[in-house]
């Protein structure tokens, strides 16, 4: 359903970042994107959600071109992007507010999502009162609030401690299992990519293109981390990236 064709991107007066990248995300599918840092992973997500425009090539959702931000595609920015002057509830309801959903309705939906993510009772707090993991859950709730058709995640768990990170990875997996909202996850953690990506894309080269695409038959499995296949795939990924000269 989400399709990118022949994406080229270069910074103004700078080097090319992406060079002819193709990507397909089928409905209900999950894709993890890994690659060396600075290879254009974040830029790719900005292109996919319409926050940035490619120099050439096209992104489309169900055949319709994506030319600007749309509520059908939600993006979770690195460091969450929660507005510090808005309460948790107002942050979650922000997308609905922008679309003009009446206050009572949007707050009701935001409350339900917060409860689903284990944040009931924190509605009136400001983001600064929350731990990193809680802030990330608020950001997830906000992304789901307007029921997007695709979710894009930019290094969503990278600034969390190991335990919280694993718990939230599981939260994302179970949320996907119930909602089946397809997502594209950009990460620098190979274990995270294996745990959360039904398909794993390896970006490489400068400017970057797709260096490899791996199927992940063990996905989805909450206990995947304990299995030898999990480690085998992570090791294979690590080797691929090392060969790529990263």
């Amino acid at each position, binding site marked *: 359903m989400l399709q990118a064709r022949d994406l080229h991107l270069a910074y103004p007066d700078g080097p090319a970042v992406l060079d002819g990248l193709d990507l397909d995300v089928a409905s209900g599918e999950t894709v993890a994107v890994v690659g060396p840092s600075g290879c254009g992973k974040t830029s790719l997500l900005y292109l996919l959600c319409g926050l940035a425009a490619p120099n050439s090539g096209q992104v489309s959702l169900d055949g319709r071109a994506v030319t600007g931000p*749309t509520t059908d595609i*939600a993006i979770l920015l690195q460091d969450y992007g929660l507005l510090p002057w808005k309460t948790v509830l107002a942050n979650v309801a922000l997308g609905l507010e922008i679309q003009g959903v009446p206050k009572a309705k949007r707050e009701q939906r935001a409350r339900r999502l917060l409860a689903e993510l284990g944040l009931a009772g924190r509605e009136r707090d400001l983001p*600064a009162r929350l731990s990193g993991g809680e802030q990330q859950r608020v950001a997830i709730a906000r992304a789901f609030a307007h029921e997007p058709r695709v979710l894009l995640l930019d290094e969503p768990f990278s600034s969390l401690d190991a335990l919280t990170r694993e718990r939230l990875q599981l939260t994302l997996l179970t949320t996907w299992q119930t909602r089946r909202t397809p997502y594209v996850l950009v990460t620098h953690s190979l274990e995270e990519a294996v745990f959360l990506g039904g398909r794993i894309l390896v970006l490489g080269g400068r400017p970057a293109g797709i260096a490899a695409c791996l199927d992940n038959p063990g996905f989805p499995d909450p206990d995947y981390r304990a299995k030898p296949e999990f480690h085998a795939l992570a090791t294979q990924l690590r080797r691929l990236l090392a060969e790529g000269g990263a």
Partner: protein
Amino acid sequence: MKTALRYLAVILTLFLAWKAAASTLTGGVLPQPEAALEAFLRDLARWSYWGHVWASTRRVLWAMALAWGVGFPLGILMGSRRAVDAALAPFVILTYPVPKIVLLPVFLLLLGLGDAAKVSMIALILGYQVLVTTRDGARGVNPKYVDTVRSLGGGYGQVLRHVLLPAALPHGFTALRLNTGVSVAVLFFVESFATTQGLGYFIMDSWGRLDYPAMFSGIFGMSGLGVALYETVNALERRACRWRRERETAG
């Protein structure tokens, strides 16, 4: 309560220092603090004195409203729209170092001897501070917040409402608060011309009549006005910017 105690301690210290100075200086130039205080209390019971207080308060409040009303929106616009900034920034940067107070005669010529010139003079000086600080505040907004609102389908209007306004508000208020002292100083200066109303006039008039206790009574009044303005803006700032304190305490 704590603020009141702190103010009281400062007043007491100043009183003692003054007392010591008045007792050592001869010639009656510096009246005893009690005499000044007595004149102040006497004046507080007079309607005519309150007329001066009101005239000064009205001028400075109008000036603050005018400075905020122009400086704040313009600052946000310049800080967030590159084209507007490119057009206006050279004007601001070039005129910023000009001591605006020297334009007072021009203002008096153009706007007449009434309050319009006085209010405009204070507003111009204060407005520059609000404008420049707000512009920097709007510029320094984390681009991630803007991206967030845009990714949720918001245009410039929504970015303005959900990001730029709340982010720039503390900057605007800080400029207003830190410059209450400057505002009152300019107020004093403009009130020493072409008026018979206001605390500035009251001070200069008492000085001319060699009535030093009354002169100090006017100085007290103006200091009180400065403190009241500072605390009012401070209270407004705290109300509007709860999230900032929260972030500091959560650290």
